[in-house]
């Protein structure tokens, strides 16, 4: 059996999710490797939070900070823009992925560049920047090791923090030997990293433009904070003449002090590290007299559905996310199917609640339903997003028209099926009429021999659900009579 996920990168989660999930579930190699990786990450996180009460206090605080920031989002964005502008950073706004790509392409064209080096940015994945650059003849090269590997393999990240978590070192060894000129097969991780380092260092030197994401944008000072271990982010933001940062409009906080608790929880929740190697605090391009740093700096602020989530008080909580990935590390569904099966930039629980705003419910309505609502995600989320509640809410929006007075979500009601509405109408009809319900149980128990031996989806791996010979109320009635 192949130990590769063969999924290419077409974003059609609605139609393909089930098939892709089934494929991974049936692959014992992938199952074992995802399980191992997630166990490792869960253990590392747990080791960072030995005191559950302290963790609760930290989460309360982080939630407070994120909710506060969102509660004055328009003001903070204005303040951020003004301060960045004062610091010499050009601020751009994009409602859609196309607009974001056009802005970035335009900057690249003005600098007549053929090469852009990229630090890790999930928003750039979200807008499919690499694709747009490639179409325009610009090489957008990923430089985070995981992203580099995934790009070399012509794939997409399967995890927001560990993009190549679906690959083994043997696969990476084969990939490097096949794709990097002059490299022979080695499984030695240090040697593999050295290969990546050598290739990419040359590119950092050559590239005219560096692109990065942003972990936190500080309104009061006009500052962008980037969190990383490798140093490629610093390379991209420091070496090329032009630095373009791209991020979602929700990433802004008011003050640098507000970042501190968030940063502490981000790294501990994500990979179980107390801190990353680098915390890169950027407050503008090279100033007069400075000897390095980019000469020109841009920030692209992307909406892409975030304003839709923002419009509703409950759905707004989605935007509290600091993209730590803990929800996917702890998700029993993600552990079984990995990231690619989702077909969305953001996989796992956060993907299920944020993708409907980015891609519309028509393409994504299956995803909120693909959860047991076990609550593991909400339990670990450092900013306390009630993910299960949001999943239920999106299930409702996916299967109903918008409520009167509420603007419809994109793709509102796209998951409606006559069968499901009928079934739940039937459920409500039956279970809200006690006498009818009693008749039903009476019939179901008496005619239990009629229970179908095949029950869609259930009986492939389980024995059929068969009513008992006597219901509890029958048993109680009998007991009453005996007395």
């Amino acid at each position: 059996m192949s130990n590769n996920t063969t999924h290419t990168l077409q974003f059609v989660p609605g139609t393909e999710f089930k098939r892709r999930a089934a494929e991974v579930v049936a692959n014992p190699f992938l199952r074992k490797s995802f399980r191992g990786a997630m166990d490792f990450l869960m253990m590392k996180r747990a080791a960072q939070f030995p005191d559950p009460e302290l963790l609760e206090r930290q989460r309360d605080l982080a939630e407070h900070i994120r909710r506060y920031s969102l509660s004055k989002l328009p003001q903070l964005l204005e303040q951020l823009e003004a301060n960045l502008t004062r610091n010499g950073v050009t601020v751009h706004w994009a409602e859609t992925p196309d607009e974001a790509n056009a802005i970035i392409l335009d900057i690249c064209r003005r600098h007549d560049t053929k090469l852009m080096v990229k630090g890790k940015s999930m928003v750039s994945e979200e807008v499919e920047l690499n694709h747009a650059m490639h179409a325009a003849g610009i090489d957008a090269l990923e430089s985070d090791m995981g992203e580099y590997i995934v790009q070399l393999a012509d794939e997409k990240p399967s995890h927001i923090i560990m993009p190549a978590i679906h690959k083994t070192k043997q696969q990476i060894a084969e990939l490097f030997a096949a794709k990097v000129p002059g490299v022979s097969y080695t499984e030695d991780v240090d040697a593999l990293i050295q290969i990546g380092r050598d290739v990419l260092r040359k590119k950092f030197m050559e590239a005219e433009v560096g692109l990065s994401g942003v972990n936190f944008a500080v309104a009061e000072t006009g500052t962008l904070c980037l969190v990383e271990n490798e140093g490629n982010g610093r390379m991209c933001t420091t070496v090329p003449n032009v630095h373009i940062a791209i991020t979602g409009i929700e990433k802004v906080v008011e003050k640098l002090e507000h970042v501190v608790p968030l940063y502490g929880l981000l790294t501990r929740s994500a990979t179980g590290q107390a801190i990353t190697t680098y915390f890169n605090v950027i407050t503008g391009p090279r100033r007069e007299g400075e000897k390095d740093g980019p000469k020109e700096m841009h920030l692209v602020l992307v909406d892409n559905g975030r304003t839709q989530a923002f419009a509703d008080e409950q759905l707004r909580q989605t935007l509290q996310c600091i993209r730590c990935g803990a929800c996917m590390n702890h998700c029993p569904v993600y552990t079984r199917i990995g990231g690619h099966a989702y077909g969305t930039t953001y996989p796992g629980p956060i993907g299920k609640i944020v993708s409907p705003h980015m891609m519309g419910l028509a393409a994504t309505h299956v995803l909120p339903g693909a959860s047991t609502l076990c609550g593991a995600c909400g339990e670990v989320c450092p900013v306390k997003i009630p993910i299960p509640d949001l999943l239920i809410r999106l299930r409702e929006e996916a299967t109903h028209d918008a409520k009167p007075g509420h603007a419809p979500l994109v793709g509102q009601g796209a998951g409606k099926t006559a069968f499901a509405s009928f079934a739940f109408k039937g459920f409500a009809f039956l279970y809200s009429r006690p006498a009818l319900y009693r008749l039903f149980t009476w019939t179901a128990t008496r005619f239990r021999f009629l229970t179908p031996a095949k029950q869609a989806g259930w009986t492939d791996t389980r024995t059929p659900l068969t009513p008992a010979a006597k219901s509890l109320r029958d048993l109680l009635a009998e007991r009453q009579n005996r007395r």
Partner: protein
Amino acid sequence: MERDYSAVRRPDDVYFFATCLVDLFCPEAGMDAIQLLEREGIRVHFPEDQTCCGQPAYTSGYADEARAVAKVQLGLFPNDWPVIVPSGSCGGMIRHHYPKLFAGDAALKAKADALSERVFELTEFFVKVLKVNWKGSGATKKVALHTSCSARREMGTHLHARELLGQLGNVELLNHSHESECCGFGGTFAVRQPDISAAMAGDKADALKETGAEQFLSADGGCLMNIDGTLAKRRDSFRGQHLASFLWHNTERQGEKA
């Protein structure tokens, strides 16, 4: 958040809310739970008109339908007695989600709030309110325990069940790997995503069996049917039992706790 039991007195009467799964698919478990309560000298009232907590519709996004069903249950418990539910996830539905479900209607909301305060999962009620003093009867048994996720996260059921089994003396509770992980039931999830659900149920069944226990226990009908049905399909001799039935058949009461 830790529930405060300080104001809850030992009652003479309780209501029993069986849940639709127990009523129809594992009625003995309901019967055994009732007998356990009665063994404590408590009168158990079974409102005839009870049906289902409404959870299947609620979690599927059919809030109106869930409300229609839940509204009937709201009217079933006129006296101020505790409502005992032998299933953590249904208990959690009433305790945590009814108030949200009725947020739009002040009168019903007040009712839902009041009900929420007196809903107890079965083991929670034994341990926290009755503070039962039981001991095991018969030979020593090795068991494994699975608690439903919503019961665990919304009701703390895993702790109560552990405490209860811990006091029996002749029951050895064996821990399984990935104990807090979901068994893959998730109501309609099992039917909507059968492959993922089956993978989760299979892993859970393996983990429980690998402990070397003689059987596994669960206080939640849905999980029980899911895991036990998986084992039955495999024709495995390792099987599950509802915690209430296990307790009824394997314990005796030792009078009041000091």
